């Protein structure tokens, strides 16, 4: 067990394991899948060679590998047909609007979102709440939201990757954004003692 497996690989697990795991987890929302992705990344790294040197270059290199692994994972799940919730009209979908097309008064109002992101970035409770809200989305919807909003992937590329039409993707992103906004408004920003911890 103590035998050296290549000069670096033991160190990798301690130095990059947590980071890569979190990187994967916020994108795939499944801890088992995230663990496997980290393992595949290290295995691929064993086979490969890194061009630049230095600790940040090593991290960048690993992140590059795990990004590909995540996309491969998405591609595999894209072969499964879309689930009910991803596209069919969920009854609550447009409960936010009155018959005349106006926002219902209770939607969004009363919650106090801040002007800029500075204070929130460091606030652990916010990210936990966001995680809970993302979990409530249908899985494929959460995937496309992550690729678009976190990874800034172009919509055309997401469509190709996940075999979606632009229209389907537009609907999924619309729902994801609105549901997350609503969920955060209620669970985080609605609270008057916001940020007490």
């Amino acid at each position: 067990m103590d035998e050296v497996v290549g000069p670096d690989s033991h160190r990798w697990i301690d130095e990059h394991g947590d980071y890569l795991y979190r990187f994967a987890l916020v994108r795939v929302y499944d801890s088992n899948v995230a663990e496997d992705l980290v393992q595949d990344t290290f295995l691929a790294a064993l086979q490969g060679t890194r061009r630049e040197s230095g600790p940040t270059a090593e991290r960048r290199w690993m992140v590059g590998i795990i990004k590909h692994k995540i996309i491969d994972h998405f591609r595999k799940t894209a072969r499964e047909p879309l689930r009910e919730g991803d596209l069919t009209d969920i009854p609550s979908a447009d409960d936010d609007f009155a018959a005349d097309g106006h926002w219902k008064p209770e939607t969004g109002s009363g919650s106090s979102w801040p002007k800029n992101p500075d204070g929130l970035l460091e606030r652990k409770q916010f990210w936990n709440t966001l995680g809970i809200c993302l979990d409530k989305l249908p899985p494929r919807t959460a995937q496309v939201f992550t690729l678009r909003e976190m990874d800034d992937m172009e919509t055309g590329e997401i469509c190709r990757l996940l075999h979606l039409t632009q229209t389907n993707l537009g609907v999924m992103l619309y729902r994801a954004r609105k549901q997350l906004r609503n969920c955060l408004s209620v669970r985080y920003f609605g609270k008057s003692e916001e940020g007490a911890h």
Partner: protein
Amino acid sequence: MSWVARFLPTCQEMSHLLSDALDRRLPWHIRARMFAHLRMCVLCEQYRHQLALLRRLLRLKDDSHGTGGQAPQPGLPDEAKERIRRALHSSHS
């Protein structure tokens, strides 16, 4: 309701347009009508801001995590580390 309002998108239509606008550049005549609606409608302006803030947060976080920022989520579980260590070991031998 004023006559102008009849030429403008409803809030429900706005919610779709505001989402679309985050993914592609909309034609100028649509942007003009959105602009006019936003000038008059606090709730849509609020919604626009919230979507933009959400995007900025997610992109900023992605840059910052790992560079000393607080870990927002648990790390790789110990059993997984052990399993990966074994996997790396056996793939090498």
